């Protein structure tokens, strides 16, 4: 399992793996928003947590189809399926690799981009915490979507259509934590809900993803 993880990480970091792509996309979104809504600091500060969350979510979405597509094309997914690893394990490792290469970097750069959006003082800590808690759920849910569309020729658009509605609860609670944190309110309730969704998704969705992958490899 660890060697599979290392292999996925190496493939992602190598050129063409799309490692930097998500980060660049995140940066572009946060640059485009002030250009669209105007440079007024008060307004930007108000919407900053939401923008950061949506940017992170879209950046995450961008790299989802790579989770299985490359392995599917060169046949290594079939090899993995016959390997002595349970399918659930493979799916979890894939999701973990996706999170380490996409989710974690997004969490790390988010405060920096918060400066661009003049995020209020108290918001930095909570945006990091909420993304740290929420992004594993984004990766796991995305892995499920990627497993659903793995064999399809033009799966990219369909993948977004399938995954985005599933992202709704995570987005709502995550952005709520960040917003309340930025405005100095109590964050406990949404934080607990976000953690619940995240842990629940990490614990249960790999079974669904594995079932879907088995069907697709049949």
């Amino acid at each position: 399992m660890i060697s599979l993880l290392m292999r996925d990480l190496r493939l992602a970091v190598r050129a063409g793996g799309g490692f930097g792509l998500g980060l660049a996309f995140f940066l572009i979104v946060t640059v485009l928003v002030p250009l669209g809504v105007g440079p007024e600091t008060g307004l930007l500060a108000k919407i900053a947590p939401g923008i950061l969350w949506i940017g992170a979510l879209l950046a995450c979405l961008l790299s989802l189809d790579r989770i299985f597509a490359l392995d599917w094309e060169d046949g290594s997914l079939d090899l993995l399926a016959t390997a002595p690893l349970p399918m659930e394990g493979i799916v979890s490792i894939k999701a973990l690799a996706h999170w380490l290469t996409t989710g974690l970097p997004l969490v790390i750069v988010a405060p920096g981009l918060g400066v661009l959006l003049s995020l209020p003082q108290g918001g930095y800590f909570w945006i990091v915490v909420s993304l740290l808690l929420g992004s594993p759920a984004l990766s796991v849910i995305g892995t499920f979507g990627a497993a659903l569309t793995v064999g399809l020729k033009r799966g990219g658009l369909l993948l977004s259509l399938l995954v985005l509605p599933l992202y709704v609860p995570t987005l709502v609670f995550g952005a709520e934590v960040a917003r309340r944190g930025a405005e100095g309110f109590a964050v406990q309730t949404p934080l607990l809900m976000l953690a619940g969704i995240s842990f629940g998704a990490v614990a249960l969705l790999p079974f669904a993803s594995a079932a879907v992958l088995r069907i697709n490899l049949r």
Partner: protein
Amino acid sequence: MSIWEYANPVKFIKTTDRLMPYMAVGAVVCLVSGLIWGFFFTPDDYRQGSTVKIIYLHVPAALMAINAWLMMLVASLVWIVRRHHVSALAARAAAPIGAVMTIIALATGAIWGQPMWGTWWVWDPRLTSFLILFLFYLGYMALWEAIENDDTAADLTSILCLVGSVFAVLSRYAVLFWNQGLHQGASLSLDKEEHVHDVYSNPLYVCIAGFILLFIALVFLRTQTEIRARRARALIARERLA
């Protein structure tokens, strides 16, 4: 004699062929009479004026939008557990109906909201959840369309339906948490306090019955269509092999 006999496509088509005329006639009778009753013979509400008449379309459509998804969920479970093809095809047949019901509920709601709340759309929990439900329907139908192999498509969509149901419920609570709404509470509940008045609710029951019958008739019809389309595909495939 058990319900599983209807899992046989031929038997299903024969039985539904017999039942469908009753359902269709019942649906037309209930809808026409309920809507006419509601439209022509109910008084205006003292606060909402004549817009109260929209309820006869809005509430049944909203009910069916949710119940269609529930039916798809049950059908998907039956497919996963017992692998009856008719069940998977019935889920497929119900999805577009549910999507149309969702559009009706959203559209009539927007038209109703305009004079009452002064806006077409607010990000109210109920409205938002319906919009999200509509997205779920779109994704479900798109997945059916995208996959060529029938069994694979049935398997994948039924798992999507299960996972989607969990997330739809989560979304419902998430948006409830996210914003308190303008929308009134349940129109029909056992609690008399918030119940709409009998003058309005009696035609409403007729309309709801009409929508339910319409839904059943349409599901029968569309499931038959799916069964036939599938058989045609199988025959074509056999022809190519020969």
